[in-house]
């Protein structure tokens, strides 16, 4: 069996005059966490709907586990779990009934439904409140329950649209751990959309950046960071004169030097020692309090991709 979970070729979908997904070609290996990043309205949700066979593409094709989304959507949905834009919980029902319903949908045996419900609700700290109606719950609790529902039937592929939205930091961190362990230990593929770029950096083995339906970049987070220039030095201090910045920019290893919120950010062309650069700054009269060397964060990569597209 192919180890590709999702493959799209020139996948395109229009809504009237608006092109929601534009020529999207993507390959996602099985068993990893894939992060799909993009601003609101960039086509992330439409892509999920296309992959689940809920919408047909206008052009191009998509396969999930080798199954065509146009012709074998039922089989695809059979193997997937989904937490979509809305939690999708029945608020008149209790947490237990919500899971009971979806457990029946996925044909889990009564004993398995009971055991799995207990396991998931206990893990997410909701077991004691399983009999309560969901309507009275906080957004974070509902989100946890929706996550439990998407994992209930042990799917091979899970689509998670902003899963940690509304969760408290501890619950979000616990969920991130769970997602990672699922992907690593059970070989589950996770297709995750998120605005939280730190989360994507921590979780995702592969990241795609989409804007206005077009895939701008795809790769491992470190590959994207390297593509975006990658290496960076951030200097905290005072007295960074224009003359000092000009001297820095003249050096071959420096791609750019800018003041951002009182910090001096130096984009480097390659990995180099930054001591000579600090020396240069000090000699030009600057007072350096702290210097950090590292790679551009995924957030910076994302922002630079968005800027390029403007």
């Amino acid at each position, binding site marked *: 069996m192919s180890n590709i979970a999702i493959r799209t070729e020139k996948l395109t979908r229009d809504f009237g005059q608006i092109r929601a997904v534009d020529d999207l070609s993507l390959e996602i290996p099985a068993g990893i966490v894939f992060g799909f990043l993009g601003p609101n309205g960039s086509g992330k949700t439409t892509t999920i709907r296309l992959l689940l066979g809920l*919408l047909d593409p206008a052009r191009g094709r998509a396969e999930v586990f080798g199954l065509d989304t146009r012709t074998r959507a*039922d089989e695809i949905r059979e193997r997937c779990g989904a937490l979509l834009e*809305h939690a*999708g919980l029945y608020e008149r029902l209790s947490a237990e*009934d919500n899971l009971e319903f979806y457990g029946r*949908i996925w044909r889990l045996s009564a004993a398995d439904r009971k055991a799995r419900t207990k396991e998931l609700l206990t893990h997410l700290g909701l077991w004691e409140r399983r009999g309560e109606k969901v309507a009275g719950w906080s957004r974070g609790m509902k989100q946890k329950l929706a996550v439990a*529902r998407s994992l209930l039937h042990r799917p091979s592929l899970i689509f998670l649209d902003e899963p940690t939205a509304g969760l408290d930091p501890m619950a979000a961190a616990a969920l991130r751990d769970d997602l990672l362990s699922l992907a690593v230990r059970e070989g589950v593929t996770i297709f995750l959309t998120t605005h939280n770029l730190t989360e994507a950096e921590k979780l995702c083995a592969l990241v795609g950046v989409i804007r206005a339906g077009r895939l701008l970049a795809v790769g491992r987070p470190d590959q994207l960071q390297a593509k975006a220039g990658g290496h960076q030095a951030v200097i905290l201090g005072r007295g960074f004169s224009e003359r000092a910045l000009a001297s820095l920019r003249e050096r071959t290893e420096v791609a750019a030097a800018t003041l951002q919120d009182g910090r001096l950010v130096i984009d480097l062309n390659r990995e180099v020692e930054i001591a000579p650069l600090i020396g240069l700054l000090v000699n030009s009269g600057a007072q350096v309090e702290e210097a950090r060397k590292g790679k551009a964060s995924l957030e910076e990569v994302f922002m630079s991709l968005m800027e390029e597209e403007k």
Partner: protein
Amino acid sequence: MITDLLTMVWKEWKEMLLQHGGIRSGILPTVIIPLILLGVMLPWQMGREWVESPLALAVWAWMPLMLMAGLIADSFAGERERHTLETLLASRLPDRAILFGKVCAVVSYGWGLTILGVSMGLLTVNLVHGRGEFLLYSRKLTLGILALSWLGAWLAAGAGVLVSLRAATVRQAQQVLMLAIMLLLFVPVYGVKLLPAEWRAQIAGTLAAGGAARLVLVIIVTLTVVDTSLIIAAMARFRRARLILKD
């Protein structure tokens, strides 16, 4: 398919009974009150007429429509309004199981309650007005009641599901359905009044001469055709993509 359908029915019944808070508070308006009204109060007031008048046919044919209109309007429009529809459509449930699960849940409620009402009505009439005599609908009337209430239930379900699939909100679906029911009720009543006097006399004469059974038969056949058409239309209308884009 049957297991999937029953799963949907299970969920629909749970939601139906819990819509007013808890099961106890839900049973009162959805089951107890209609039963007291139809099975006790009306038969008590009407006495022997309750089992002898052909009007019973009209009452029991209409009953499922009145009982089901609100519930069936909620079927898809409600899921859409409460943002549960897309998650349901993203599950493995086949289209037919979702559609017929919702229809069967409401039909079982509407028709089930109607039959319970018929039985309770008979009990009430016999207890209050029986005077030692066992009062029962005639065989023809019994068959007519069973057939017309069954077809009435499917009429409500078919029309309701179609409206609910198209409506943006539950309120909109309920308004359209109530309007349709009112039209069905008033158009024949006032329509007959608009007919020339000799036509009306001819109709009355035909009915008096034993044509009532034939009329009921015509209604049964017509309803069967209409119900089947509505269900086929609902099946054609039920498209995941169309429903998602309306969400």
